[in-house]
């Protein structure tokens, strides 16, 4: 059950996430951030609640991962500084928006190859099982990834080996401009997992539902039953990346999708069911905004990495001298 404290935590991170994304967009427009910037606005419920619920396990994600990384515990400063490409960024300016990694928070990316991280998550789940670690692994991917070989091979292997792996499909129905039903024979991608493992579906715009579903999933993994598939339907409010004009979705479609706003939904629940006051919510919102402002300041004032830093981290052993 979701108590006040948890609801506040979810709300705080969702608001933080959204403000963070808007700030990132703004600084992209101003030229401080470059490359591909994929905003997660509209999908905060999934990104925050899944991470919070899966606290004990390992997580692998995609290039649309700012909010997830922060919900995992990575500081907004380190994320924003990475977007700015600064030395203080979580990947020291080498990775950028699509490549946030923080093993200290069991967060392993940030991968820019659609579906490419899924086999990595399978391997990590193998390691965890081998080590007798019961918390399991969660891999987050989009509907677009469910058409690629990497995804399918992973379903089969995870099932054959009974690995503690939660497949979390964030189905926002689009891969850039291509609607999922144009390139797959159905809208529900959980169908594809059916031969291999139990599947669940959840409203990805409902933070509490997501939290409960992922929590249930983690228990299932802990009990050693093998992998599980969870599909969450969501909606991204922005274009695929900041460079995408989003012209393939009608205003009507966008309006419909925004009616289910995940932050509003959680807010209503907190006000009406949990009895949290709007003043309390406002406090959280302000704290989030302050954190984002601080992150932007931090990023803007952080140094560029020195040019020689580009030769660092090619190898772990002996640095560059080893080779």
């Amino acid at each position, binding site marked *: 059950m979701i108590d006040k404290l948890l609801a506040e935590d979810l709300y705080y991170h969702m608001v933080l996430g959204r403000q963070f994304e808007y700030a990132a967009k703004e600084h992209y427009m101003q030229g401080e951030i470059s490359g591909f910037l994929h905003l997660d606005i509209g999908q905060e419920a999934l990104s925050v609640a899944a991470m919070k619920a899966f606290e004990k396990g390992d997580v692998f994600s995609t290039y649309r991962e700012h909010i997830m990384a922060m919900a995992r515990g990575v500081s907004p400063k380190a994320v924003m500084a990475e977007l700015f*490409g*600064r030395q203080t960024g979580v990947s020291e*300016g*080498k990775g950028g928006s699509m490549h946030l990694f923080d093993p200290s928070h069991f967060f392993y990316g940030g991968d820019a190859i659609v579906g490419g991280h899924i086999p990595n998550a399978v391997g990590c789940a193998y390691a965890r099982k081998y080590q007798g670690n019961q918390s399991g692994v969660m891999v987050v991917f989009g509907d*677009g990834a469910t058409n690629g070989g990497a995804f399918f091979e992973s379903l089969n292997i995870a099932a054959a080996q009974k690995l503690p792996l939660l497949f979390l499909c964030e189905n926002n129905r689009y*891969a850039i401009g291509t609607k999922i039903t144009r390139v797959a024979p159905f809208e529900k991608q959980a169908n594809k997992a059916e031969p291999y493992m139990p599947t669940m579906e959840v409203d990805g715009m409902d933070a509490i539902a997501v939290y409960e579903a992922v929590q249930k999933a983690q228990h299932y993994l802990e009990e050693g039953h093998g992998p599980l598939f969870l599909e969450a339907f969501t909606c991204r409010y922005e274009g695929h990346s900041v460079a995408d004009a989003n012209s*393939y979705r009608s205003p009507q479609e966008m309006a419909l999708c925004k009616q289910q706003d995940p932050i509003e939904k959680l807010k209503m629940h907190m006000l009406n069911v949990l009895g949290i006051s709007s003043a309390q919510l406002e406090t959280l919102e302000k704290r989030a905004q302050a954190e984002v402002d601080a992150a932007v300041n931090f990023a803007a004032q952080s140094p560029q990495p020195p040019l020689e830093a*580009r*030769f660092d981290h090619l190898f772990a052993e002996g640095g560059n001298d080893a080779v």
Partner: protein
Amino acid sequence: MLYREALNKALDETMALDDNVVVLGEDVGLYGGSYRVTEGLVAKYGETRLIDTPIAELSIVGNAVGMAIGGLRPVAEIMTANFALLAFDQIINHMAKLHYMSAGKITLPMVVRFPQGVSKQLAAQHSESYEQMLAAVPGLIVLAASDVNYAYHALKYAILRDDPVIFIEHELLYNKKGEIDFAAKLDPLKARVVKAGKDVTIVSYLKMVDDVMKAVPLIEEKLKVSCEVIDLCSLNPVDYETLAASLEKTGRLVMVEEDHRTGGYGAQIVSWAAEQMFYALDAPPLRIAGEDIPIPYNRQLELASIPTPESIAGEIITWGEKHGI
């Protein structure tokens, strides 16, 4: 006309000419292509000829091979070269080999378009160049389009030729301006002398041709030399004749490429010159290439990882002074 418009025109004209020409790839249809190369074509030719595929690069190329077997002339688009690694089995084991292994019984008139290179801060998984790998595969024709005119003529040639062609484009060239010379009889397999000169031969291709041309005035001024600039155009087969003629004249070779130095494509050109043009060379050849590191996101680090007009000029001037050129 823009480079991407020239590509669009080449597609449009070949599609109008032959119903068998079909285009497939991610977002090539309704969306118009992520670099807008296929814009407007779906309205003209419909969804059966502008095929929006799922994100499944292995299948994009693998399906194209099958379409060609079935009698079509597919033009597959890989959204960005890095993703093509997922299709390397189809490109190398199938597309390049079926004609040969079947002793010519199977013919594969097909093209795979490859936007590649370091764009702007797309980081290591979106910034690579694979010509060194692909030009080393027997059975593939590998073309690299550095300008509008070549892009147009070479893509038409690639589509109409009965062999598998890898068609490399650079992501920073799509908005490059230029004119198409419709009257010209351009042979896409021949190298192009972009600028004639007599003292130093600078060989390059794709976007680096522009960067070399920007560097040339400074080099000529500082070294008091005249540079001949050659755009290879076809990376396999290579037009060694044009290179040889130039080297006979200049005796000095500089090879410029954007890709990582170690094992980069330019090694083939320089090693050829060392073997075949040894006695014509008056100075050690110079290779200018990217660093041997994944491309970092930070803009300054990124730019420091690849040749720029400034670094090209700088390296050539230092080399020239050292060797008394």
